[in-house]
């Protein structure tokens, strides 16, 4: 269990109180195996505004929004999880796919930790089950020697399993899911057993459109998923809110105490949006886009990094130097040529802009480069 010394608490622990309040006196019916009704899951994801919910202890809890975006997409995602099909969240890097997956799993099954992480090296064992070889040699195949995968756990317990970056795995490994998703069972032939999935089991997979992508998925597997595409945040103010909220949460996690002036958040988000779109917000100037995905998540990490710099090496307040330094690290990740993108951005976009922050940002940027 995570406690206060863990760096990061999973969603179900961080929002334990909210979940408790939502579960208490849920007036709507729950699909079998779910801890919350679909409507309450939606409230957990989208927030309750001014409305509060009472815990069994009588405490009134307001639900904070977890996803700041299109409610309709979340509704489709929730409805999918209550259906026969599994859910595949698709999107550019940093569009909150894992974030949504984690919080949905936490709300529906009370755990977000039944995760298979997809990589090029993921094997079938990691998806289904493996063996403790010492025991296997000593006792032969037995329940004791079996090492179940998170997926198998989820099936036995009737919970939501998560498969992160599923499309990074080899297609054959991905196709292991076929029988799991259509028959809702895993055969452990060594034990002569078939493990059926209990009610409440389903799968949330995520896929990155910048990776090998969903084109490489077999069509048989595609048919077992409903696809929900999470969009890049379309609105500056909304993206600012997301970046600011998430950064503050992370700062609390990492126990960083630094000031985060809104002007700098705005400047950073503007830079990200302009470099992502290849065009300034007023559509006047073309901007070169770096090969790095200039995602919202990346902006959050730059800001967090900036606040760390501010606390430990600066004046305790995020300013031009922190932003410029963290930004360089973020942009010039994959290709040295990306540095030129930033350089040109400084010269062509930042320099001509009026306003103290832009000028300060320009000078700081030139220093860093």
């Amino acid at each position: 269990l995570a406690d206060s010394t863990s760096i990061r608490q999973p969603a179900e622990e961080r929002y334990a109180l909210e979940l408790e309040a939502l579960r208490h006196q849920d007036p709507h019916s729950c699909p079998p195996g779910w801890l919350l009704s679909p409507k309450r899951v939606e409230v957990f994801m989208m927030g309750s505004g001014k409305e509060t919910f009472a815990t069994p202890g009588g405490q009134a809890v307001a639900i904070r929004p977890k996803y700041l975006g299109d409610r309709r997409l979340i509704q489709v995602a929730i409805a999918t999880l209550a259906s026969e099909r599994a859910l595949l969240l698709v999107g550019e890097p940093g569009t909150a796919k894992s974030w949504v997956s984690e919080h949905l799993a936490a709300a529906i099954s009370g755990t977000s930790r039944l995760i298979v992480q997809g990589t090029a090296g993921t094997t079938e064992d990691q998806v289904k089950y493996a063996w403790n070889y010492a025991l296997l040699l000593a006792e032969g195949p037995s329940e004791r020697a079996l090492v179940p995968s998170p997926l198998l756990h989820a099936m036995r317990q009737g919970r939501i399993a998560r498969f992160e970056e599923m499309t990074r795995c080899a297609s054959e490994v991905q196709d292991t899911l076929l029988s799991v998703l259509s028959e809702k069972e895993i055969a452990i032939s060594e034990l002569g057993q078939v493990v059926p999935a209990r009610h409440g089991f389903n799968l949330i997979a995520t896929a990155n459109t910048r990776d090998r992508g969903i084109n490489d998925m077999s069509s048989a597997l595609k048919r077992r998923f409903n696809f929900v595409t999470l969009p890049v945040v379309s609105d500056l103010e909304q993206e600012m809110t997301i970046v600011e909220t998430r950064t503050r949460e992370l700062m609390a996690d990492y126990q960083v105490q630094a000031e985060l002036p809104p002007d700098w958040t705005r400047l950073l988000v503007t830079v990200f949006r302009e470099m992502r779109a290849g065009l300034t917000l007023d559509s006047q100037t073309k901007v070169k886009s770096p090969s790095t995905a200039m995602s919202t998540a990346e902006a959050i990490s730059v800001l967090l990094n900036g606040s760390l710099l501010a606390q430990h090496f600066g004046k305790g307040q995020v300013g031009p130097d922190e932003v410029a330094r963290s930004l360089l690290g973020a942009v010039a990740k994959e290709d040295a040529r990306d540095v030129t993108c930033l350089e040109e951005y400084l010269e062509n976009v930042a320099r001509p802009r009026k306003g103290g922050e832009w000028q300060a940002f320009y000078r700081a940027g030139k220093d860093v480069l």
Partner: protein
Amino acid sequence: VIVFPVRHHSPAGARWLATLIHELRPHLILIEGPSDATPLIPHLLATDTRPPVAILAYLSAEALAEGEEPRSSAWPLCDYSPEYVAMRVGHQVGAELRFFDLPAGAFLEQVEPSRPGHDASPDVWRAIAQRFGFEDYEEFWECRFEMIGDGDLAEAMLELGRLVREFGVDDHDLARESWMRAELARALAEGYDATQILIVCGAAHAPALEMPLPDPPTSQSPNLPISQPTNLPTFQFSNAPFRPAHLTVIPYSYPRLSEQLGYGAGNRAPAYYQVVWQRGGDFGQASQQALIRTGEVLHQAGYAVSLADAIEANRLAHSLALLRDKPAPGLSEVREVAQACYGRGVFDVDRVLWPLLIGEAVGSVSVQVARTALQQEFHDTVARLGLPFSDAPREHRLYLTEAAGVEASVFLHRLVAVEIPFGQVQAVQMVGPGPSTADASDPARWLGQLREKWILQWTPLTDIRLAESSVQGDSLAEVCARRFRHRLSEAQRVADAADVLLHIVLTRLEPLYPDGLAACERTSSADEDLPSLARAAHALYSLVKYGSSRAAHGSQSMALEAIERLLSKVYVRASMLLPAAAAVADEAVHPTRDALLMLHDVARQSSLLDGALLAGRLRLTAQGAGSHPTLSGLSGTLLFMSGDLSEPDLTTLLSQWLSGGAKPLAGAQFLEGLLALNRAVLLRNQAIVGWLDGYLQTVPGERFVAVLPVLRRAFADLAPAEMDYLLGTLARLLGLEPDRAGAAVQPPVTADELAAIDEELDGLLDKL
């Protein structure tokens, strides 16, 4: 009096209304619609009228002021418009049917005359939707009204009407309501029993009709039934003057109906709601059908979508509706679910789905309906020639070797000339040699063609414009001729007059030839603009060359001589403008360049014209110190190509522009003009390439950046073969092995290298 508030094109409203009329069996039904359209009701109900149709009102020729644009307004009706159902069912139960809104003419005086229906702005509708927790008014409407089931629709509608009125009612609406109330009062005065009168009107007007009525015109009527006395202000009937309108019924279409969104009377998905209507308001069934149909279409298009997907999609739609507190899945659920279940995260299902939900249905109108002469001519001709008639773009080819093809071409060109939207001519591969600068929109090009490709699409707008245009004449030829005469009298430039003349030939309006020629004659004498004269020469030459293929027999010979005379006059005048007309600023180079090319083409091809005249003038242009360098280069290459300039002469010209004494930028511009044509020959010429090489070496380093963009333009579109010639010549010049030279200058082969170079150049250009 029973007021039944409706929304136009609402299946739920139509269903409720039908039941109500059957129960109530009213003696009189007053329906929202222009009161002078009441005589059209029998036509709307005729067995050979099939919705969607629209009542169309337009102003007659006499009513229009001098120079005023024709105007019209349409009231569309579909199968499930409550107004239409009121007429149909009302007719069955033997009720008297009347429209009772302001006469149509009053709507034509509005700033946006084509906007009937209640007139709240889109902002109001959005504000109302938001008040009930919906983002979108259409979704709010669908969920709360169309899916109302056993709820009291009339009560809900009345509530909505009151809400709309809270946002304000404008003078036009007040005037309409006054008129409606007066009509109601008149009916009562005629002796209709108040309980036997049913009113069908937009929800926003309903509250106004429940208020006390004014005294009827014949003030002897007995006690007026007053439904709900309120202390709202009584309305004044505004006497804003309006002109009487002509009224007719035209076919309408689902695609157009779906465009009418935004003021609360539209319908996003006419075909989808048609199914809802046919299934008695069962949205579950309609949504299922839409999802299955979309799956089929995707499957046929080669996507792996199966029936299992459709079943899953349908299930998901229902759970989504449940999550959203809707009685059944509606349009939004269908769209979102189709994307999630069929889209596979890759393709955009909406592209397939929307057209299905909108539909392509086109209505038809009873033969009894009096059409304007133009409409009649249009529909007869379309039917006789077998032209495609649907509200979706259809390709149609015409072969001008056949009489029917020629007739269709003339018909379609006439429609284009009078701006009646129906056909668009497409570019076709040219038959035979043609002017090199002509593009698809150049009418001179069509003259030489033996076939034409058109994209044809009928829309209600076609009929609307036909009706409107009937004020300008009784036949297409007459309207067309009137337009052309007007354009001829307005023409200032000879190019414009010649363009009209071309169109006169394309549309076969022979009686207009004298007017066209006279206008060309008049304008040509005063025109001092080289591009205009050159375009006119090009047009006139096309007429001389191809004109006879388009003209009817016998009428041509006289005109041909006159056109030849005109051509030679225009050509001489244009030539004489050189070289002075070549002394232009950078911005004007492009049109002048096209003019030179056109003139040169005409001179080369026509035996009538004195080629030596132009050659002499081009020579002056090439050498003239005042000429723009690009035009000078172009003149040089034109002369060299036609053999009017010898190689030594050309080399001399090169030395003038490219030697160290000349300005580098001018040199680059000269090269751009020189290499615009005939590059294969020029680049194989050792002397010319030698000059080029010498020039490049003399440009000082700091000036090179300035001339680079121009040079890049000049060399950018060299074909690989031309590049080869250049390299070969250069190798010989420098005494290299041709192969090694190639290897030394060959463009880099890997994509990375190319990208790097490209980027570098981009950077360089950005700095300029």
